[in-house]
C-alpha cells in the first residue's frame, strides 16, 4: 500500500519523511552466551496485567484504565510490550448465524508503537494478517454455541512492541484475559508463547534485537487444561527435530504463562 496517500480526514505531514540515521547503534551483539536482559534461555519476560473496568482509579499504574463501555477489558505488559484489549459483546453481529455466535478480532499497532519508522494510520497488511491469526488462535476456546446470532468483538491495540512474535503472543494472552473478564463462556483460556532460534539454541520470548539475529521463530497458542494447541506458526529455517523441541518447550512455557494469567484473573475477583 502506498504511504503517500493524502488522507483528508487526518492532519497530514510532508509526503515523505524518514528516520534519521542513528550513529550509535544500540543493537547489542554481546549476547552470544547470555541474554541482554540477563534472562535464562527459557525465561519469559515478567508479566503484569490488569483486567476490568477499573476500581483502580487511584492505582499508580498509568494505563490500568481500559474501556468501561466494553464488556471486558485487559491491559497486559510483558517486559516492554504493552497491549490493551477491549471485548465488546455479545452484541448484534453483522454476519449473523442463527445457531452460533461469531468471534472477530481487530489488531492494531499504535503509530508510535514500533522502534523503527512511525506506522501509517492506514491499516497495513500485517495488521490484517495478525488480526486473523488472533481470531484463529482464540476462536477454538470460545463456546460459540452459547451465543446464537450474536457477535463478540475483540479490539487490540499495541501501545509498545518489542519483538514481533512475542507481541503477537502477548496479544493472545491479553485477549484471553479480556474475554474472561467479559464473562464470555470459554472451554479454556488460551495462553501463548514464542521462541526464536539463535544458532542451534532456542531462546524464549525474544525481544526485537534478539529477534533480529534469530534465524527461525515459533509461536504457539495452547489451551493447557484441554491440552490442545490452537495455533502454531513457524517461519524461518529449522530441522524437524528442532521444531519438535521448540513445540515441547513452548507448550511448557505456555502452561507457565497460563498459570500467571489465571492468578491475575483470580485476584481480580477479590
Amino acid at each position, binding site marked *: 500500500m502506498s504511504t503517500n496517500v493524502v488522507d483528508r480526514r487526518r492532519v497530514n505531514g510532508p509526503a515523505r519523511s524518514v528516520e534519521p540515521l542513528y550513529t550509535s547503534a544500540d543493537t547489542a551483539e554481546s549476547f552470544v552466551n547470555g541474554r541482554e536482559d540477563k534472562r535464562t534461555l527459557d525465561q519469559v519476560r515478567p508479566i503484569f496485567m490488569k483486567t476490568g473496568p477499573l476500581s483502580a482509579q487511584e492505582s499508580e499504574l498509568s494505563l490500568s484504565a481500559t474501556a468501561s463501555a466494553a*464488556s471486558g477489558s485487559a491491559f497486559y505488559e510483558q517486559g516492554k510490550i504493552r497491549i490493551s484489549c477491549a471485548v*465488546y*459483546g*455479545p*452484541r*448484534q453481529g453483522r454476519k*449473523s448465524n*442463527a445457531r452460533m455466535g461469531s468471534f472477530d478480532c481487530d489488531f492494531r499497532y499504535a503509530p508510535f508503537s514500533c522502534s523503527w519508522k512511525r506506522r501509517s494510520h492506514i491499516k497495513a497488511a500485517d495488521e490484517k494478517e495478525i488480526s486473523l491469526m488472533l481470531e484463529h488462535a482464540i476462536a477454538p*476456546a470460545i*463456546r460459540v454455541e452459547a*451465543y*446464537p*446470532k*450474536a457477535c463478540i468483538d475483540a479490539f487490540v491495540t499495541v501501545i509498545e512492541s518489542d519483538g514481533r512474535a512475542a507481541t503477537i503472543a502477548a496479544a493472545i494472552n491479553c485477549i484471553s484475559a479480556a474475554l*474472561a*473478564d*467479559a*464473562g*464470555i*463462556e*470459554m*472451554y*479454556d*483460556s488460551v495462553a501463548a508463547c514464542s521462541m526464536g532460534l539463535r544458532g542451534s539454541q532456542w531462546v524464549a520470548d525474544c525481544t526485537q534485537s534478539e529477534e533480529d539475529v534469530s534465524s527461525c521463530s515459533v509461536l504457539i497458542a495452547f*489451551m*493447557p*487444561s*484441554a491440552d490442545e494447541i490452537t495455533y502454531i506458526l513457524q517461519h524461518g529455517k529449522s530441522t524437524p527435530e528442532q521444531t519438535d523441541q521448540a513445540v515441547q518447550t513452548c507448550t511448557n512455557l505456555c502452561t507457565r504463562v497460563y498459570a500467571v*494469567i*489465571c492468578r491475575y*484473573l*483470580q485476584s*481480580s*475477583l*477479590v
Partner: protein
Amino acid sequence: MSGGIESVTPGRRLGLAEEYEAGSGTYTRNGMIYSSILGTKVVEKAEEPKETDSQSKPTLYVKRSNAKFAIPVIGSEVLCRVVRMNPRAASVAIMMVGSTPCQEDFQGVVRVQDIRATEKDLVQMINSFRPGDIIRAEVISLGDQRSYYLATTKNEHGVIFAQSAAGNTMVPISWEEMQDPKTKDTEKRKCAKTF
C-alpha cells in the same frame, strides 16, 4: 454448603460428572465438569430427594463475579423501544433481556399478526404502537438475518411507556387506550396490563 470460597477460571476442573450435576457456567467433557467462566465455584445440594427413582446429585455451578450482558433467546422477555414502523411490522431496538441490560441494542421486529392473540385480522399497527414507545415483548423466534421476531400477544406485554403528541407521559386507561394526564387527549395503544 461450601468449603470456603474458591475462585475459578475458564478450563478449571471442578468435579466428576458422575457425582455432580453440571449447572450454569460449566461444561462437561470426558466425564469431567469444567468451569467455562471466571467466577466462584458453588456446590448446591440437591433438593429434598424425591421418592421416585431419580438420583439427586448436588449441582455444581459457577457464579459470575458481576452481572454481565444478556442476549435474547427464544422465550425471553425483552424491553424495547419502537424505532420505526410500517403497516405490516414495527422495528424495535431491544435494550434489556429480563432485568439485564444488553450491551448494545439488538434489532427486533413485531409483525402486525403478533401484536394480539385474538382478532388478529382487525389489528392495525397505527392503533398499537408509535415510534418512541417502550414496549415489553417476548422473543418468539431468532428471526431472519438481522432481527429477532417478537410478540406482544400476552396481556402483560405491550406498551408500558409512551408519550403523547404533546410530549407528556401518558397513563393507560384501558387495554387499548392511553391518556395524557394534562391535555386529557387519548391515544390508541396495545397497552401492557399493569400488575
